[in-house]
């Protein structure tokens, strides 16, 4: 079974032959149109936290649709509920009310083990504080999502971890302890970790928040590259300057969405979706299972393109 089939099988749709990978993510209604299925879609999303005897409503009935291939930046003041929203989208947390579907599946009905599987295979997390495991070395940290998916042999895990470390420019550091790395390097390790299971969606909560501007820019370049290769990225930030990387900017205030506009990279995005560019795992990054499609050259060409 290829990875693409896995994902469709997981989301309850009939498996599709390998040859149809080109329209992955665009499998639409019975009429056969190529309207992309929204990756994330929610209506009236509400989140309350118990605060003493009262309840604190942090998200107040949000409606949002995120399509494949978008680079969504969520902006807003501290305490506006960005992290809470991100945690719900990434299935780390559950909404108090509202409908929420991920990749065509209603999330409310999912059991915890199913949510774990989705987090493991379809979502990649990048946190502000990196959250690597200090007792493991760089390569082992990157391999961890594959360990939990339980589908990849350890030799394959090492090979695959190496591939993604090369991708973020840390191929040399595979055997190092994570504590020996700089903040920027640790964040790149975290990005490699978020990618190894070839997720549909990358969730990044202030990924540059703990880094200096220059290092932050490098991280953003990596995210932009991944987005251009088809990954959907949802990122939370405070930094207005970052919006140039996004195809879409969503603004929040006190648990409400107050703005939703195209970002600085919107034109790139529309070009990609307009030509129906395949957006799951077919370009550049590839998957560990379909290692044949991976070519480091693709990335380095992007790199030169970006630097030029």
């Amino acid at each position, binding site marked *: 079974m290829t990875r693409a089939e896995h994902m469709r099988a997981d989301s309850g749709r009939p498996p599709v032959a390998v040859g149809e990978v080109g329209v992955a993510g665009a499998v639409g209604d019975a009429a056969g149109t190529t309207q992309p299925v929204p990756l994330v879609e929610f209506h009236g999303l509400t989140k309350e936290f118990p605060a003493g005897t009262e309840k604190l409503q942090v998200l107040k009935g949000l409606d949002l649709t995120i399509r494949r291939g978008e680079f969504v930046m969520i902006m807003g003041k501290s305490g506006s509920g960005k992290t809470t929203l991100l945690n719900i989208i990434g299935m780390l947390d559950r909404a108090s009310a509202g409908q929420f579907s991920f990749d065509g599946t209603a999330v409310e009905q999912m059991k915890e083990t199913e949510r774990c599987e989705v987090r493991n295979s379809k979502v990649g*997390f990048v946190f502000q504080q990196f*959250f*690597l495991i200090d007792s493991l070395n760089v390569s082992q940290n990157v391999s*961890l*999502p594959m360990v*939990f998916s339980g589908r990849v042999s*350890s030799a394959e895990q090492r090979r695959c971890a190496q591939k993604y470390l090369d991708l973020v420019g840390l191929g040399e550091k595979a055997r190092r302890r994570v504590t020996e790395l700089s903040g920027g390097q640790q964040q790149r390790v975290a990005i490699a970790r978020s990618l190894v299971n070839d997720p549909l969606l990358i969730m990044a909560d202030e990924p540059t928040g703990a880094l200096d501007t220059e290092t932050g820019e490098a991280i953003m370049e990596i995210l932009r590259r991944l987005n251009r290769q088809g990954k959907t990225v949802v990122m939370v930030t405070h930094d207005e300057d970052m919006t140039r990387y996004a195809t879409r900017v969503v603004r929040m205030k006190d648990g409400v969405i107050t703005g939703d506009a195209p970002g600085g990279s919107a034109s790139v995005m529309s070009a990609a979706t307009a030509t129906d560019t395949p957006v799951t795992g077919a370009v550049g990054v590839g998957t560990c299972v379909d290692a044949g499609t991976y070519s480091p050259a693709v990335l380095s060409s992007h790199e030169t393109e970006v630097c030029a």
Partner: protein
Amino acid sequence: MIRNIMLSTLLGLRTHKLRVVLTMVGIIIGIASVITITALGEGVKKNSMDLLDSTGVSGITMVYLPDKIEDMGLDFSFKKSDMKRLLRLESVASIIPNYGYFMGIGDGEVIDAATTYLGTDGSISVTGRAAGAAADELSLGRAITDADGESHVVVLDYMTAQSLAVDGIQMRDLLDTGISIGGAMFRIIGIKADPTELSAADADWTQHCATLPFAAFQQLIADEPIYSLVLTPAAGYERQTVIDQATDVLTQAHPGLAGTFEVDDSIASMRAEMESSLNIAIVVFVSITVIALLVGGIGVMNIMYVSVTERRREIGIKRAIGAKPRVILLQFLFEAVFITFIGGVLGVLFGFALAKAAAFAINTMVPDVEGMFGAILSVKMTAIACATSAGIGLIFGIVPAIGAARTDPIKAIYQ
């Protein structure tokens, strides 16, 4: 995946070596003390049982018991015909008759016989020289040889010779004189060495009694009553089968006796008694160490709680990137079992070494124990010890591990 979990657990333990070792210490001490005590106990048990066995417990000693207590002293003797009948039983391999008293199978028999020397009555202990047996140490004269056949010659023990050599008679004057033993005249041909001047190894029991040629001894005891018969079961026959069949044969052969044939199992009961008292001692020590192990287990539980609390963020991260609660549970359970199992293995090795050392020390330093102490490590005991220690990890690790598995990923990462 299990392999991966184990591997990452071991990698995690690497960073807490000291704590892991300290946790193990409790288990090591507990298991080591159980192993020391049981290994020593088993060793002493085996050695003492071997000792008892060598004194004839494997044979079945049949005796006659009159119904009435007051008939106890009444003369009863097994007959040679009884022995012939019993030997016809397939279940009986061999029979040794017991005359007088008995020094144990293989050592031969001794009887007390009445003596008259120069008109003075006395009594001596007499034995027969088994063909080919090594000669005793002599002080005078010559030893009995195979060539003596059934001739009436005797080699006196030193003490007897001393008691006869009175009133100006020298010991050497005894040689070639006649002595009446059990009513028959024997010629004194030699006198044994003084046992008090011999080494312990040479001064065995034969040194303390007079010796006749084997055939002559057999004639002497032919008229002696046979108090008991020692049956050796044939291979493949149960003890009880032999006892039942022999009792039947003897009862039929002696009709009209107001008594029964019984097994004299005084040695067997001695053995059982010894075994049970040793077992009680072992059980007592094992119970004490079980308490010690419980304490060790609580230590493990404590450490596991610390470990879970300390690694809350790590758990949160793993849960966030897709580890199922079951995986986290397995990880901590494996960690607990690994620590206690390794502790158990080390405890077995350590405990056995200690038992060996203790046995050696007692054997060399305490007089009169003569190698009674030993250490035996049975496969069963090793398996029990290892399983127990792993079980302790499982039992005391499960609650903290469940706690870890229930960790809320968000709270854990943003703690």
